């Protein structure tokens, strides 16, 4: 849009693109996974791949909170909203994720359930305070970035004895997912997913710091560059990864040092540790059951844990057979390789979770990049002379 720095950005981008093209060895290919949905979105939204040479390829990772939420967890929320009469609050995208029997929270709302879209965990607590005679459940999702705000409202609800407020916790952990991908047979032994490095998450790392990634760099010999969510940040991270690969280094580097440090936000970590503990295992859409990959609410806050309060029992539900979200989340397939892509499955009628949020690989490709799937239509060099 029309910001003063737009033109400067375009210039910087051209400079970075030239550097990547110059330094990338034409004799080899580079495959980097951007872990985070925020990066997936930035890359698609700004057309970053147009600025990369053909031998540098980005693979979308599983760091999209809505995408990895399995059907069974949404079914729990839908059940609460439909048959237990609670006010169910969650973030907008979560409401559209397809669950069992073609349901979603949004469809449950149309059937009469009281489902409300909120912008924050605090909004949900506010709704609970305003409706003391109703049970209010916040469906909490997300990686380490959204965990501290959930911890905060749980502490507040506990202290203020907001008895009608509880959280259905689905918070998951980034490092566990990265290990899962690195340990997958496709990456480790079959070599069907060539993976030369990671663009590490921005906001997550402000909380957990860069230290947790050092293990991947050392143990799996994969370079990691933590990057901000601006498209220029991503491009610079790609350049840094290309350099590491060329120099046979595998280190954790921090492109986002203006915000991220090694230890992370200790206060937030302490808050999270006070309210949450590790789950022994958690099912992820796409990755399957991953040990110690998610958080649950500690005993001390049990009164505000929807799973305990409503005695919820998790039932795993298989994804739609034709949906390739699982393979896509692990970097094995690309959205166009799914038979349903763009036909039965579009952002209006998502069949899988990757088509829901704009951070999902399928939705990002459909909404921003699908013109690339056809024979290039010659476009004028510039639409407007600025």
């Amino acid at each position, binding site marked *: *849009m*029309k*910001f003063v720095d*737009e*033109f400067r*950005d*375009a210039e910087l*981008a*051209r400079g970075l*693109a030239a550097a990547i093209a110059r330094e990338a060895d034409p004799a080899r290919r580079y495959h980097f996974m951007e872990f985070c949905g925020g990066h997936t979105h930035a890359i*698609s*939204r*700004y*057309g*970053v*791949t*147009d*600025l990369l040479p053909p031998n540098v390829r980005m693979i979308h990772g599983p760091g999209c909170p809505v995408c990895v939420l399995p059907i069974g967890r949404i079914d729990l929320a839908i059940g609460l909203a439909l048959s237990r009469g609670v006010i169910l609050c969650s973030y*907008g995208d979560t409401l*559209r994720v397809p669950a069992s029997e073609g349901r979603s929270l949004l469809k449950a709302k149309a059937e009469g359930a009281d489902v409300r879209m909120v*912008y924050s965990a605090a909004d949900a607590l506010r709704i609970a305070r305003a409706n003391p005679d109703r049970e209010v459940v916040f469906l909490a999702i997300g990686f380490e970035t959204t965990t501290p705000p959930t911890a905060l409202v749980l502490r507040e609800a506990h202290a203020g004895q907001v008895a009608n407020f509880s959280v259905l916790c689905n918070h998951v952990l980034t490092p566990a997912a990265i290990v899962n991908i690195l340990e997958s047979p496709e990456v480790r032994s079959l070599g069907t997913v060539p993976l030369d490095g990671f663009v590490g998450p921005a906001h997550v790392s402000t909380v957990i710091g860069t230290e947790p990634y050092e293990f991947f760099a050392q143990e799996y010999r994969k370079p990691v560059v933590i990057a901000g969510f601006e*498209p*220029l940040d991503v491009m610079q991270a790609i350049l840094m990864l290309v350099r590491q690969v060329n120099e046979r280094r595998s280190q954790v580097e921090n492109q986002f040092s203006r915000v991220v440090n090694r230890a992370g936000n200790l206060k937030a970590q302490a808050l999270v540790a006070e309210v949450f503990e590790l789950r022994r295992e958690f099912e992820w859409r796409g990755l399957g059951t991953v040990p110690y990959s998610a958080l649950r609410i500690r005993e001390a806050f049990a009164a505000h844990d929807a799973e305990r309060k409503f005695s919820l029992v998790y039932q795993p539900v298989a994804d739609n057979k034709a949906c390739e979200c699982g393979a896509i989340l692990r970097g094995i397939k690309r959205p166009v390789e799914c038979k349903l892509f763009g036909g039965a499955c579009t*952002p*209006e009628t998502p069949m899988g979770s990757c088509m829901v949020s704009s951070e999902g690989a399928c939705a990002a490709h*459909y*909404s*921003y*990049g*699908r*013109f690339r799937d*056809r024979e290039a*239509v010659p*476009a*004028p060099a*510039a*639409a*407007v002379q*600025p």
Partner: protein
Amino acid sequence: MSAAARREYHRPLDLRRGRVELAHGAGGRATAQLVEELFLAAFDNEWLRPLNDAASLPMPAGRLVMATDSHVVSPLFFPGGDIGSLSVHGTVNDVAMAGAVPLYLAAGFVLEEGYPLADLKRIVASMAAAAKAAGVPVVTGDTKVVEQGKGDGVYITTTGVGVVPPGISLDGAAAREGDAIFVSGTIGDHGVAIMSKRENLEFQTEILSDSAPLHRLVAALLAACPRIRVLRDPTRGGLATTLNEIARASGVGMLLEESAIPVAPAVAAACEFLGLDPLYVANEGKLIAIAPAADADRVLAALRAHPQGRDAALIGRVTRDPDHFVQMRTGLGGRRVVDWLTGDQLPRIC
């Protein structure tokens, strides 16, 4: 109805503390009193005054256009406007986008039992002021009342008629390869104003809705360049959705230049915060114009010469594209699709 007959109510409406009652919509004396003391008092004009079921109107020669628009915006009062002024602007603009001079409005009110009459009076006053400023009288109307809990204060449906001057032919299917695409000013202001009020967000600068009647801007534009092919106001779904509608109707593609699209810095910042893309956020006082490339300079000059088009910009070109993609060169130099709006991120925006 004579003035004497109108004075037969025992007590005047209590416009300070009174509330909408079911009787106000029942068609009896209470309805008549509400109509006379509130609506007629505000909208008064020679066509409405007889309070017949239908207004009888003189029409100039030309092609008649007619548009209708229901308004369910929440909240009813927002920075830069309210449901009253919005209901005038929305319909005046729909008529104006056909190239027509808007002449008359009809208004239907659905009121919720218990709604404060004082607030209703504010809405009606604002609606009357907007109609007056636009020079388009409200010539007939209707009022219904629904039980408490079955509505949300006030819904207003307005219908407008206008006449297209000879020689003007605008059509959403008329865009042709090579045409130039313009927007008359910054985008996203209305939607962000509503959202910031709804979410109780305080930004450093208050963001006002751009709600405004555009028919004078349209008249100036058509006078300067009668060959304009398409005019549309990008309301719900924003610039992106409206351009996709035009691309499909015309069987063409488009290529936009992101850096040319005007967005107020405060709106851009708020969108970033709310996770919205200004391309998809509603406008109520902006138009999109598509004109032959040869007329581009003239169109831009005409837009910028009008106070409502001060920030107008040439934002892209119409392309040949069998898939009717609207594409954009991003500020970074990459390319992307600018797709239809998915779902309804912002319900009840107008």
